[in-house]
C-alpha cells in the first residue's frame, strides 16, 4: 500500500526543537488512559487530547471533529505502531499536516538535547543535556581536549559522540548521588573512555563495583586550564548527595535544589532521618555560598522551568527569593511538606537504585521499560 502524501514522521529531536521554540502543535495521544494520566508531552503552545487507539479500531470518523483543521497534528503512542495506525487513517480521511512520533514515548523519554550554558573563565564551556521527556538534566564540562560529565543519562553513546565532536576525551564521570529515577550511564561511560567514575561514598555502601570517592576537599581538574570541580557535601535527598561548584561560577545541585521546587527525602526509604539534613543544606549550607552562583539542577518538573533555548538555570539569590521550597520558615511546616502528600514515586525506583548499585543487570529493553515516566524527584510542582 502506498503511503498517503500527507502523512509524515516526526522525530523526538524535531519535537524537542518545536517545544523549545514554543511552536503550536496539536497532539492526539492514543495510549491507554492510565499511561496518559501518568505522563504526557507538554509545551506552552501544545494542546493534547487522549483517545486510546483501541477505540479507533473501526475508524477515526467519530473523532475527526475533535481534531482541529489546519493545525500541525502529531499522533503519539508508546512505541510507534499504534500512532502510525491512527495517523494513517486521519491522513486518509483527507487531513493534511499529520505526523506520528518516531519511536513513540520511548524515544521521547530518551532524547537528549544539548544546550550550551556558558563559557568558562580560562576557555572551555559548560553544556547541559536536557532529557526533555523525562525531565532529567546532565552536564558536560569541556576544556582543552578534556571533558567531565555529571549525572550522565543511560544513553552514554550520545554523550560520548558529543564530546568527540568537541574534540574532547571524557576523563571523569560523576554522579552527585545514587539516582532513583534513571539509570546512570556514568560507570559505563568511564569504562569505555578509560575515565574515572566518581560517586559519593555515603551513597555507595552497597555498590558492587569500584569507584573514586567524591568527597569534599577533593578537587577534580578538567583540562590544562584548571577548571576546578569542587564537591560540597549536601545531604538530604540521599545521605551522600554532593553538590559541585564548577569554575567558581556554577553550582550543580543534583536532586537537592531545583528551580521551582526542592528534592524529596523519601526515595531511599529514609525520609524521617534526612529531613534535618535537607533543611540544613537548603537553609544554611547553600546560604553560606556566593549568592551569584548559577544553580544547575539534575531535574526539572514542569515545562515552565525551561528557560530561553531550553536552559534550566537560575541564580542562587533568585531562588532564595522565589523558590517555595526555600521559603518555609517554620521547621514543622517544612517537615510536613517534604514528607506528606508527596507525588507518587518514580516508576521502578527500587529496581533503578539496585541497578545503579550494580546489584541488578537488566537488559537494554528492560532498562528502557524501567525508566518510563517522569522523574518525580521534587517535593511539589509549584
Amino acid at each position, binding site marked *: 500500500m502506498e503511503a498517503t502524501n500527507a502523512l509524515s514522521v516526526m522525530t523526538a529531536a524535531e519535537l524537542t526543537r518545536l517545544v523549545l521554540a514554543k511552536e503550536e502543535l496539536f497532539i492526539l495521544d492514543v495510549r491507554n488512559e492510565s499511561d496518559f494520566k501518568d505522563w504526557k508531552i507538554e509545551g506552552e503552545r501544545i494542546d493534547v487530547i487522549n483517545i486510546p487507539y*483501541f477505540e479507533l*479500531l473501526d475508524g477515526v470518523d467519530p473523532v475527526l471533529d475533535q481534531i482541529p483543521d489546519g493545525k500541525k497534528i502529531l499522533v503519539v*503512542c*508508546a512505541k510507534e505502531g*499504534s500512532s502510525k495506525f491512527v495517523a494513517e487513517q486521519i491522513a486518509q480521511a483527507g487531513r493534511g499536516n499529520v505526523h506520528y512520533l518516531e519511536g513513540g514515548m520511548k524515544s521521547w523519554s530518551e532524547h537528549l538535547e544539548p544546550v550550551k550554558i556558558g563559557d568558562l573563565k580560562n576557555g572551555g564551556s559548560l553544556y547541559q543535556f536536557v532529557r526533555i521527556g523525562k525531565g532529567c538534566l546532565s552536564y558536560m564540562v569541556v576544556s582543552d581536549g578534556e571533558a567531565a560529565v555529571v549525572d550522565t543519562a543511560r544513553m552514554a553513546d550520545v554523550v560520548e559522540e558529543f564530546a568527540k565532536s568537541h574534540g574532547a576525551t571524557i576523563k571523569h564521570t560523576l554522579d552527585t548521588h545514587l539516582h532513583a529515577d534513571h539509570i546512570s550511564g556514568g560507570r559505563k561511560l568511564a569504562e569505555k573512555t578509560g575515565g574515572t567514575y566518581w560517586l559519593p561514598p555515603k551513597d555507595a555502601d552497597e555498590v558492587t563495583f569500584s569507584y573514586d570517592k567524591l568527597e569534599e576537599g577533593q578537587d577534580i581538574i578538567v583540562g590544562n586550564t584548571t577548571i576546578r570541580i569542587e564537591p560540597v557535601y549536601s545531604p538530604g535527598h540521599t545521605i551522600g548527595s554532593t553538590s559541585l561548584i564548577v569554575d567558581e561560577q556554577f553550582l550543580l545541585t543534583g536532586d537537592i535544589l531545583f528551580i521551582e521546587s526542592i528534592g524529596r527525602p523519601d526515595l531511599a526509604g529514609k525520609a524521617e532521618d534526612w529531613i534535618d539534613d535537607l533543611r540544613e543544606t537548603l537553609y544554611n549550607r547553600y546560604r553560606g555560598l556566593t549568592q551569584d552562583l548559577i544553580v544547575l539542577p539534575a531535574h526539572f518538573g514542569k515545562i515552565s522551568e525551561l528557560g530561553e533555548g531550553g536552559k534550566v538555570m537560575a541564580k542562587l539569590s533568585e531562588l532564595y527569593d522565589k523558590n517555595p521550597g526555600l521559603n518555609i520558615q517554620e521547621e514543622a511546616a517544612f517537615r510536613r511538606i517534604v514528607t506528606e502528600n508527596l507525588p507518587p514515586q518514580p516508576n521502578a525506583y527500587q529496581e533503578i537504585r539496585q541497578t545503579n548499585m550494580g546489584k541488578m543487570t537488566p537488559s537494554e529493553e528492560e532498562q528502557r521499560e524501567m525508566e518510563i515516566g517522569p522523574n518525580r524527584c521534587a517535593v511539589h510542582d509549584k
Partner: protein
Amino acid sequence: MPLIKADQSLDCKGLACPMPIVKTKKAMDQLEAGQVIEVQATDKGSLADLKGWAKNTGHQYLGTIEEDNVLKHYLRKASPDEIKEQKKYMHVITNEELEKKLVSDEIAIILDVREPAEYAFNRIQGAFSVPLGELENRLYELNPEDSIYVICRTGARSDMACQLLAAKGFKDVHNVEPGMSTWSGPTESN
C-alpha cells in the same frame, strides 16, 4: 447448552501494538457471547491496553497469567442477553445473605457455574466449579439432598442452572444474586 462452550487461543506473540488488540477484536467478533478467549502476547503494553479495551467494549476481562515471558490474557465475550434475560427461578438469595451464612459457619455448598477461566482468577473460597455447559452431564457429582447455592457473575447463568437442578429433583437450590460481579466477601484464586 450452546451459550458457553469452547475456549479459543489466539497467538499474538512477537506482535507490537496495535496488532494484539486488532487481532483480539477480530477473533472476538467470531466468538459467540459468553465464550472465553485466551490471548498470548509478548508485548508488555498489551495488558493495560486489553483491560482498557474490554472496559470500553463491555467484554469481561478475567485476568492475566505470565509464563516464560508470555502474557496470557483471558477475556469473556459479553452477552447482551445475560442482563436482559428474564430470571425465572423463584428461590433467590442475595450476596449479603450468603456472606452472612458463610460467616456463621452454616454448611453450604457453593456451586460456581462460570467458565473455568473466570473461576480461576476470582472465586469464593471453597466454591465448587461446574461450568453451566457441563452441568447436565456432571449431576452425579452433586447430592440432591444438599443445600446448594448457585452463583455466576450476574445471576443469569446461575438462574438457568437452578432451573435445571430443580427439574432434576434437587430439593434445596438457591440462586445467588447478583453474583460475583459485586461479591465483596473473601475470595481466592489459583
